[in-house]
């Protein structure tokens, strides 16, 4: 008998939603000692399925059909008291965002002890044992810390410790590594795998990333638009996917081996660089004396794409923002052709605004929600003196260029999907006809399949418009796809740079090696 069995579960969406059911007729089962991955993009219903299992569905969603059997009993018939007894004790859960899942006002020790107290279990020495079991260094000191004093990975380990406290038979993990850096992600994945094997738990693991699936799953369920489209053993699914959607998802995961790229027209090392950074340093006030960027030096040749890779807090975004004067570095030179941009005033910078443009990370936040798309795209040229009607006309051409319907010009940003909004953001940058395009994590907020489309578009535009690009990303797989050269940044310092293929094949710095080893699914892909 399965540990957990979901049978024909249907959850209705409130009236007026884009589809009648959040999930319809979903069935799956989880056995002891296996990891079942539920894979799908945002809106596929994967989170709703587990929320129903935990009794955590939002009030607007109603279960209209189906059963959820835990050890043979239907938990949908449970009273609230029975439900509370089950949560934590028989099913543990970890969430995506470790910062918001922990109570910021409680010490780690109290939060871990809380679940045992709630269920009437003796606490004793368990807290320290648990913290040690999830591989936290110095459990005694850590137990006294508050969540904000821990790193993201440490917080997620605390969450895992809480979920494991009562040794539940089932662990539900809802995208537990999505908010983490790659190296941390790999550690947390290993930890979950280890604990699962040691205790023979069943793990229900939700993810959107097939790389993670390859790393951790025993069996896979693929969901699309609220329905299960394919399920099976992990090797089967990865090597012989049947459903077109699964194929699409797997194909969308960027390969780790960089494809061969034609050499850019200007030689990156000998030719005159378009942009050259020399010893750029930026320290934020009030963060101790640690510079966010320390002595960063880079060159970008004409027509080249340079990838700036690093984990969160590495200073890559600060460096990108320093180039466009969103932050002002205290020393170093930012040479664009022959001009040092660093000492220029706001006014002196203005002519360069046309030549250097930026695409931002979060397409939802980077477009003014109160303005129409056409105005958003046209505003740059208008600010530089182009007549409004001409700029509007060109905005419509640009919408076509980024493969959007020209009718989009009269609509507001919230009417578009994430990928479409990012296309608008790109169109806005291109409206200035820049030479240098800085893309700050342009795909990290997007689903994998959308990610692939945006990368394709950027690559296509780069070739057609002869753009030079500085591409900032935390995802080495993305960098491998699109960059001629990469620079790896860690704690504000550029530790390695070189042609992408070379860096990937023979990393010289330990950190680069660690990053490469942490790419989920890498080893299994290569075998």
């Amino acid at each position: 008998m399965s540990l957990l069995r979901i049978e024909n579960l249907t959850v209705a969406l409130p009236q007026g939603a884009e589809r009648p059911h959040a999930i319809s007729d979903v069935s799956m089962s989880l056995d002891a000692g296996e990891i079942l991955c539920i894979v799908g993009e945002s809106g596929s219903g994967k989170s709703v399925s587990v929320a129903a299992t935990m009794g955590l569905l939002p009030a607007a969603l109603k279960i209209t059909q189906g059963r959820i059997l835990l050890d043979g009993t239907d938990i949908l018939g449970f009273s609230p008291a029975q439900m509370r007894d089950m949560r934590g004790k028989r099913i543990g859960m970890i969430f995506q965002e470790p910062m918001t899942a922990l109570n910021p006002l409680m010490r780690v020790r109290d939060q871990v002890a809380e679940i045992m107290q709630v269920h009437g279990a003796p606490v004793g020495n368990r807290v320290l044992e648990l913290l040690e079991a999830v591989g936290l260094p110095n459990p005694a000191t850590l137990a006294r810390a508050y969540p904000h004093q821990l790193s993201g990975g440490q917080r997620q380990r605390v969450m895992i410790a809480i979920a494991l406290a009562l040794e539940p038979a089932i662990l539900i993990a809802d995208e537990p590594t999505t908010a983490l850096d790659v190296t941390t992600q790999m550690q947390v994945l290993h930890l979950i795998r280890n604990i699962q094997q040691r205790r023979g738990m069943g793990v229900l693991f939700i993810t959107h990333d097939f790389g993670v699936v390859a790393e951790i799953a025993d069996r896979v369920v693929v969901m699309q638009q609220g329905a299960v489209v394919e399920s099976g053993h992990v090797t089967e699914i990865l090597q012989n996917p049947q459903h077109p959607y699964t194929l699409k998802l797997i194909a969308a995961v960027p390969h780790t081996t960089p494809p061969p790229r034609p050499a850019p027209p200007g030689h990156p090392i000998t030719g005159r660089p378009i942009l050259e950074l020399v010893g750029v340093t930026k320290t934020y006030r009030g963060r101790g004396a640690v510079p966010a960027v320390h002595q960063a030096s880079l060159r970008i040749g004409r027509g080249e794409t340079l990838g700036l890779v690093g984990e969160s807090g590495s200073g890559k975004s600060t460096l990108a923002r320093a180039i466009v004067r969103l932050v002002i570095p205290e020393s170093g030179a930012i040479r664009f052709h022959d001009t040092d941009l660093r000492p220029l005033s706001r006014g002196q910078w203005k002519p360069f605004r046309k030549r250097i443009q930026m695409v931002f990370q979060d397409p939802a936040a980077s477009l003014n929600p109160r303005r129409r798309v056409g105005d958003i795209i046209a505003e740059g040229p208008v600010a530089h003196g182009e007549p409004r009607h001409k700029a509007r006309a060109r905005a419509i051409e640009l919408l076509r260029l980024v493969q959007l319907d020209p009718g989009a010009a009269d609509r507001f940003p919230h009417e578009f999907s994430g990928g479409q909004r990012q296309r608008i953001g790109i169109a806005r940058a291109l409206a200035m006809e820049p030479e240098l395009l800085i893309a700050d994590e342009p795909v990290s907020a997007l689903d994998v399949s959308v990610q692939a489309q945006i990368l394709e578009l950027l690559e296509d535009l780069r070739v057609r418009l002869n753009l030079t690009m500085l591409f900032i990303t935390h995802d080495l797989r993305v960098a491998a796809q699109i960059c001629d050269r990469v620079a790896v940044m860690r704690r504000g310092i550029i530790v390695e740079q070189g042609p992408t293929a070379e860096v990937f094949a023979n990393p010289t710095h330990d950190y680069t090696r660690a990053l490469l080893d942490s790419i989920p699914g890498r080893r299994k892909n290569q075998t």
Partner: protein
Amino acid sequence: MSFLHAFTRNRGAVLGLIILALVALMAATASVVFPFSPWDMQGAPFAHPGEEGFLLGSDSLGRDVAAGIAHGAYVSLLIGAVSTLVGLAIGVSLGAIAGYAGGLMDDAIMRVTEIFQTVPSFILAVVLVAIFRPSLASIVAAIAIVSWPPVTRVVRAEFLTLRNREFVQAAEVLGRSRFAIIVHEILPNALSPIIVLASLMVASAVLLESALSFLGLGDPNLMSWGFMIGSGRSVIRLAWWMSVFPGLAIFLTVLALNLVGDGLADALNPRLSRRR
């Protein structure tokens, strides 16, 4: 459309809006319904409501209380609206500059704001009106001067969070001017708390004006609700209607403005309006 829908779902707000519309209608038609100065004697003094053709009675000089209320509505609404507009103009511009520029400019503006906030606003208004002689302009100015500091604080807080948003940074990168960024990019996104605050400011301005007139610091040429209460106060046992009806008018108008303000706050906050 969705805004209207969310607003009309709040029954209190709709009621407030109706009351407010009636008060405005009363102010607009005052000179038609009562085609005489509210200062003129119209009959015997101390007539009870309903007697001698006085709907709401007459005062100690035989003036029509109903006419006073109708004409006073105009004064109350005018002073409420104009002083709020002036207060908003001061508060929004200072708050926008403080929040957008940050640093020393921010410090300087906020210290000045705090100085104004530490002085009790009513006392300051009384002093200002007394210095500048009571007139419509000086009353509007005094109310505006005491009511801008909260606006500055709210606008500054909004600007502080908004100026680090990516769409503002994008506008910087596009090379737009500071003025354009403030007015076209940030301000429209900070509008909802400003609108809510404005509706409540009108309410407090109406109250302030009444309080000033009650103390005899109103414009001597304009009939106002506060003045009517003030003049009726000494004979309240003899002629309760002289104080009660203007009092009711103030109460209803301020209540209506508050209801509308709450309704706006709910409707403009998408998270709250969805929960309803």
